[in-house]
C-alpha cells in the first residue's frame, strides 16, 4: 500500500512538471510579448527590452524556468498585470470562495443524487426509476446559462424572493448562495444520480444478490448490507471527479451571478491576457485534477479490496 501511494505521488509530481513546462513554453518563450503585456500596447520595443533585462529575462530559458518553478512551489506566482497585486493575494481567496460553493453544492447533491440513484436502481423499470431517470436527463440537458436565466427570471424578477447576484459586497450572505448552488445542482445531480442508478441496477442483477434473495433475506437487509457497498464504487469516483469539473465548470455560474470565485478569476485573466494569473490558475487546476484522481484511486481500493495496484 505504501509503495503504491509513493508511486502515485511521484507520478503526480511528474504530471505537474510536464504541465508547468508546457505552460512556460506557451506563455514565456516570446519574451517581447510578455513585456508588451506588462507595459501595454503603446510601449516601444526599447522600453520592453529595458523591462526584460530589469526583470531577469536575460537569463537562459532553463534558468528562468527553474526559477519560476521554484517560486511557484513556494506560492509566489508573480504579480497580476490586470489587478496589480501579487497573484497569491487573489488566487487563494478566490479558490476559497469556489471551495465554499463546492461545499454547499456537494452537501446537497451527494445525499440527493445517491438516494435518488439507489431508489431508482433498486427496481429497474419501476415508476420511481422512470421518473428519476426522466428528471435527471431533463435537468442535465439544460445548459447552465439557460437554467440561470430561467431561475433568475422566476425568483428575482417575478417573485422577487432572491437577490439577483452573489457578489457578497457586504460580506457573506446565505441567500446569495441559493441561486448559484441551485443552478449547479440542477446541472450536476442528474448525472451522478444516473451513474448511481446504473451501478445499483448492475449490482441488483448480480448472482450474489439473487442468492441472497433466494436465501430469503429481508429486502432492505440485502440492499443496505450487500448491494450498497458495491454499488457505491462507481459513484464515488464520479463524485471525486466532480471536484475537477467544478473548477472550470463553474465559470458560467460565477460570471452570471458575479460570484468572486476561481472560475471568474481564470476567465478575466484569459480575456485580459494576464499571463501570470493564467499560469497560476492552470497549475492549481491541474493540481486539483491530479490530486482528485489520486484520492479516487486510493478510495477505490478501500471500497473494493479486489482492486490492487501492481
Amino acid at each position, binding site marked *: 500500500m505504501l509503495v503504491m501511494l509513493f508511486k502515485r505521488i511521484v507520478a503526480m509530481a511528474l504530471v505537474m512538471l510536464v504541465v508547468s513546462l508546457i505552460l512556460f513554453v506557451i506563455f514565456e518563450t516570446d519574451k517581447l510579448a510578455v513585456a508588451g503585456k506588462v507595459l501595454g500596447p503603446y510601449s516601444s520595443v526599447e522600453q520592453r527590452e529595458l523591462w526584460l533585462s530589469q526583470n531577469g529575462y536575460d537569463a537562459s530559458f532553463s534558468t528562468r524556468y527553474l526559477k519560476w518553478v521554484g517560486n511557484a512551489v513556494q506560492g509566489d506566482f508573480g504579480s497580476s498585470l*490586470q489587478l496589480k497585486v501579487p497573484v497569491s493575494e487573489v488566487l487563494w481567496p478566490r479558490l476559497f470562495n469556489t471551495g465554499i460553493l463546492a461545499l454547499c453544492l456537494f452537501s446537497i447533491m451527494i445525499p440527493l443524487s445517491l438516494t435518488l440513484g439507489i431508489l431508482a436502481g433498486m427496481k429497474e423499470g419501476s415508476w420511481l426509476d422512470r421518473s428519476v431517470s426522466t428528471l435527471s436527463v431533463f435537468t442535465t440537458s439544460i445548459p447552465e446559462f439557460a437554467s440561470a436565466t430561467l431561475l433568475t427570471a422566476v425568483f428575482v424578477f417575478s417573485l422577487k424572493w432572491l*437577490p439577483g447576484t452573489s457578489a457578497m459586497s457586504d460580506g457573506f450572505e446565505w441567500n446569495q448562495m441559493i441561486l448559484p448552488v441551485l443552478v449547479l445542482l440542477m446541472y450536476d445531480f442528474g448525472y451522478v444520480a444516473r451513474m448511481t442508478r446504473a451501478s445499483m441496477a448492475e449490482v441488483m442483477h448480480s448472482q450474489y444478490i439473487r442468492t441472497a434473495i433466494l436465501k430469503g433475506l429481508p429486502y432492505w437487509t440485502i440492499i443496505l448490507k450487500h448491494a450498497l457497498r458495491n454499488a457505491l464504487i462507481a459513484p464515488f469516483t464520479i463524485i471525486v471527479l466532480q471536484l475537477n469539473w467544478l473548477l472550470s465548470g463553474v465559470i458560467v455560474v460565477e460570471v452570471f451571478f*458575479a460570484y468572486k470565485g476561481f472560475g471568474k478569476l481564470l476567465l478575466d485573466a484569459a480575456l485580459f491576457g494576464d499571463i501570470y494569473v493564467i499560469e497560476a490558475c492552470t497549475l492549481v487546476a491541474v493540481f486539483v485534477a491530479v490530486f482528485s484522481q489520486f484520492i479516487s484511486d486510493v478510495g477505490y481500493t478501500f471500497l473494493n479490496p479486489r482492486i490492487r495496484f501492481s
Partner: protein
Amino acid sequence: MDERKLGKVHAAIPDMLQQVKKGKLSRREFIINSALLGLSATAAYSLVGLKEFGIPAAHAQTPKKGGTLRVSMQVQEMTDPATFDWTEKSNVARHIGEYLTMWGEDNVTRPYLAESWSTSDDLTEWTFKLRKGVKWHNGDEFNADDVIFNFTRWLDPKTGSSNIGLFSSMVESFDTGKKDKDGKAVMSKRMIDGAITKIDDYTVKFKTSSATLSFPENLFNYPTMIMHRDFEKNGKDFSKKPIGTGPYTLEEFKIGERAVLKRTGMPYWGEKLDNPYIGGPVFLDKIQYVDHGKPGPTVIGAYASGQVDAIYAFDIAQQQMVESLPDTTIYTASSSITGVMRMRVVEKPFDNKKLRQAVQACCDIDAFSKLIFGGRANVGEHHHVAQIHPEYFELPKPKQNIEKAKKLLAEAGYPNGIELTMAIGNTSGEWQTQVGEILKQQAAQAGITINLNVMPSAKFWEIWDKAPFGLTEWTHRPLGVMVLGLAYRSGVPWNETGYNNPEFDKALSEAETIADPAQRKAKMEKVQKILQEDAIMVQPVWVPSFALANNKVKGYTAHPTRYHLYHKVWIDA
C-alpha cells in the same frame, strides 16, 4: 445680463453675440463657445436669456443629507490617473481627485480647480487663474506648482499618458541621438521650452504652437486629473495614497470586487461655488461601487433585486428588460460616442479609394439607429462630426446605392466581388458586433463579403491601430475638431487609418484657429466633404449614453461620456 457690463472679454464674444441676435448662431452654440473663451457659464446663459442648466426650480424637494449610493460598475485598477484608459477607473477617482475645468450634461465648460481663464485672440496663449484656499487631503494648499507638476509629467513620454496627444500643441519631436537597428534616428517627444510659465502661485500661462480652442475642455478629459505635486514621491499609486482635493476619500478598494468612497471629514471647498454640478452642499455619506462584470443581464439582475441603486451602463440588448423595471428612471444623454469602421489607407486593398467608396456606398445609415437603438440614436454621415457638435455643417445625407457600389467595385478591379475581414473588440458592449453585422448584410448585396473577426477587448486594443479594417469606438468629445485632430491629421499618434491628406490637414487647421463658431461652421463644410469623399471610414451611427437609477435617487444626470460626479446626488429615503 446687459452686454455693456461684460468688461474685458475675448474679442470674438461681442461678434458672436451679434450673430445670435441676427439668428446666424444658435443660443446653445453661443453658450458653449463663449464659455471656452473664458466667459462664465452663468454670464453666457444670461446674455442669451436662457436659464442656466441644473439650477433647481423653486418648488423642488429639499435634498436630504446622508446615506449610501450603491452603483454597479466594473472596479478596475486605479494606480495612476495620468494613464487611465477606461472611464470606469476615473469614475471612482473623480470623487477624490479633481480637474481644472469641468463640463456636464449641457456640454458647457465651467471652471473647477481653475477659477477662470482667458485666451489670446489667436487662441495660442491660455492664462489660468487658480482657486485660492483649496486644501489637499494632507493639509497642503493647492497651487500653481501642482498644475505645473502634472503637465510636466503628462508631457513626458516616460509617463505613458495619452494626454501627450491631447496637448500635442505643447510638445515637439526631437532626435535622441541614438540609432535603431536599421540605422534610423530614434525620435522622441518632449515638452516645448516655455510651454508652461508660472506667473505667480495662483496663475499659470500655457503657450501652444497652434490654436487650440478645445484647451479648457481637454482639462476635464479623464486622464487629466490633478494630482498632488508629491505624487511621484508618494509612490505613484493613487489607490494606495489617495490624496486629492475632492469631498471623498477611499475607504475600501478591491479590484474586481468593490470600491467604497466616504466623506473626508474635511469641509469641502467646492460648497462655496455656484456651479450647478459641484457647488453647494454634498449630500451622500458614502458611494459604493460593486463590480458585477460588464454591462449585461447580471448587472440588471443586481439592480432588479435591489442590490444596487444605479448602474453605470446597460447593453442595448437589455433595453426592453430595463424599460419594464418598476420605480426606475432611464437617463439618456446625446453623445458623440461612435463606432468608426475605418480602413487603413496605407494597406492593401484599402489603399484603393474606389474600393473604400464602394464599401461606403453599400451603407444604409438609417438601418443602424433603427435596428440597434430603436431609433433613439442620431445617424452618422461618415465624417465623424456629430449633429450635436457646435460646428457641424449639414451636408446632404449619404444614401445607400448598391448599383453605384457594384460599379465602383468593378472599377477598383474587383468585378467579381471581394472578401474583407473586419476586427471587432466590443470594447464597450455588444452593439459593436451588431453594427458590424448590419454592414455585413448591406455589403453582401454588392458582392462584398465582410467576415467579422470578433475578439476579446484586451486583444483588440493590441491591434486597434494596426488591423487593416476594424471597428474602433471613439468617445464623446464636445467639439468636432477635437477628434478630427486626434484621429485623422497626418502623423498624429492615434491616426489609425494612416490617412495623410495635406488638403484635409490645411482645412482642419483653418477651422481650428477660428474662434467664431459661425465662421468655423462654414470652414467645416470642406473638412467634412474631404473625409466623406476619401471614404476612409463607414460611420453610420452615434451611440446614445444611457444610465439608470432608482427613483429614490435624486439629482442624477446622464453625462455624455458616462463620467460620474455625484456631488449633487441624494437619496430620498
